[in-house]
């Protein structure tokens, strides 16, 4: 019987290694904290009611984020309106109706690939398909459809996880009682999976709200001084506005960009916190 090591390594070495690993966990987070702190320090003074309710301006002190924030809100709502139903439907199909088989396997590997396609390629897809071929122009709806395609894999994967977590016994019980597959899904599986679906939707929305590259390729506008007026309206979005501000030479705009980042991060924080709270409450209600 051969020993794996010739002598036991010193406890000190093991402890040092453990410390190193812990450092590996904490250091990046700490670095992120430092960077965020720097941004907050730069931009927090700029955030006031005026900043939140003004339109862009050539003067950094007068520029505001209203059009971009409202545009992002519209964009993300539309994106979710498309991505969530289609994503849930796809996940239901894959989990409940066609778990095996070549088609299901093909769809599965396809989704896994789409999840890894760079967002800029979705931008090109949106440009050629929605903006040009379907002649939707540089509008909210073109942006929303593009982002919906981008986040669809996220919704699908999260929903599948949620559906999988429903015990098979419940399904079988329902089937034994004579329920059709759709009745099983609608009345037994889905209600239990709703918290997971919500998580997936929030993940998708969080991703969509921060995406700039596809919107840039679609042709985002640099100056918008009105709120969107319909789904074919031109629009701006938070990441685009931040991007534009980082491009301008005046130092005041760097402060505006920092303030914009704070708004974006705060929105994400609120979004995720609400989602986690709601999900926890739903899970409690369902007795899990």
């Amino acid at each position: 019987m051969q020993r794996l090591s010739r002598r036991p390594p010193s406890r000190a070495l093991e402890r040092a290694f453990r410390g190193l690993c812990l450092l590996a966990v904490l250091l990046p987070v700490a670095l992120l904290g430092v960077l965020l702190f720097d941004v907050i320090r730069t931009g927090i003074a700029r955030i006031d009611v005026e900043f939140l309710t003004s339109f862009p301006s050539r003067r950094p002190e007068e520029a505001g984020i209203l059009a971009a924030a409202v545009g992002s809100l519209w964009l993300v709502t539309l994106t979710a309106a498309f991505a969530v139903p289609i994503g849930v439907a796809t996940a239901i199909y894959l989990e409940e109706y066609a778990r095996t088989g070549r088609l299901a396997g093909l769809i599965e590997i396809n989704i896994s690939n789409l999840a890894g396609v760079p967002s800029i390629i979705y931008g090109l897809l949106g440009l050629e398909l929605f903006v040009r071929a379907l002649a939707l122009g540089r509008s909210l709806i073109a942006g929303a459809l593009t982002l919906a395609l981008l986040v669809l894999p996220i919704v699908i994967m999260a929903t599948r996880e949620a559906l999988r977590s429903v015990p098979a016994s419940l399904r079988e019980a329902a089937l034994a009682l004579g329920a059709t597959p759709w009745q099983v899904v609608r009345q037994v599986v889905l209600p239990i999976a709703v918290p997971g679906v919500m998580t997936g939707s929030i993940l998708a929305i969080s991703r969509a709200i921060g995406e700039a590259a596809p919107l840039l390729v679609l042709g985002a506008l640099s100056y918008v001084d009105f709120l969107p007026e319909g789904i074919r309206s031109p629009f701006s979005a938070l990441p685009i506005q931040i991007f534009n501000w980082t491009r301008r030479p005046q130092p005041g705009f760097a402060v505006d960009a920092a303030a914009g980042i704070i708004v974006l991060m705060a929105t994400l924080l609120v979004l995720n916190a609400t989602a986690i709270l709601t999900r926890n409450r739903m899970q409690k209600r369902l007795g899990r």
Partner: protein
Amino acid sequence: MVSWTLVSVPSTCRIGVAPLLTLACAAGCTVPAGTGGIVVVDGSSTVYPISEAVAEEYGRRGPGRVAIGTSGTGGGFKKFCKGEVAITGASRPISAGEIATCEAGGVDFVELPIAYDGIAIVVNPAADWVDHLTVDELARLWAPAAQGTATRWSDLRAGWPDAEIHLFGAGVDSGTYDYFTQAIVGTEHASRGDYTASEDDHVLVQGVASDIHALGFFGFAHYVESAHGLRLVAVDDGRADNGDGPIAPSVVTVGDGTYQPLSRLVFLYVATSASVGPEIAPFVRFYLDTVASVVQDVGYIPLPAQAYPLVRARFDARMTGSSFDGAGSQVGVRIEDLLGMG
């Protein structure tokens, strides 16, 4: 178990109905882009700051509803000649090909010069060996043949440091690049390719400001906006009749035509077809009336005071067509000649 039904009904409704509602809304509650009162401007990123300033003032007077894109001079013309936008900014006159496309698209336009812009040559403040540059030296530096050959400061002028030059300049998509190559190299679009090319002047400003061996060219307006960290280089065009010796760009020298050959006009092109929405004309009138007062705010040089009423008259009379016959970037054009001001 009891709570299922409370949760299940809403979730099912929510699942199926949302995209249908959105699509239904698409049919009914659309606002076609460009009409319905939104003024869409596109075109040159050089002209963008002027348009932005005007739009901001316009918005102060009442609900503005102006959207400005920056697809570049050529990209803007492409949309303009297809009728997708009614106003486009250009940092060079419309070319022959673009005039033909507009004709094919049934788009008549009015050409409106709105300001002067200079192209500034800048170096890092610590590059103290550079006193001035001649047009010949610039031509040697930027010609296509320079790619790979003229790579060091000492190649340019004897006595200068034997260090690599790091070049920054406008991207090939911009009117600034078109004009610069026309004025310096002599042929539009001909230049070396091994430099940092960017439409975003911030990229260029940062590049030169952080590198002692850097040299760059971009719009004078952007120099004005970010003067710290850069140093202007005076340019000597070798001609005595428009100012002797090396001349640095400034509001004065660009305005009176002594900073040559790197001074140019920038333009606004407005479509005059019947299908153009009613919100366009009031905006353009406001633009022409206001531009003189905001132009210096954003680093451009206003035309002489007498010029603006003439430009305004040109728009009011809807004088279509270009004065440049599609010849592209023109060097040394003075507004007085253009508008026949004598």
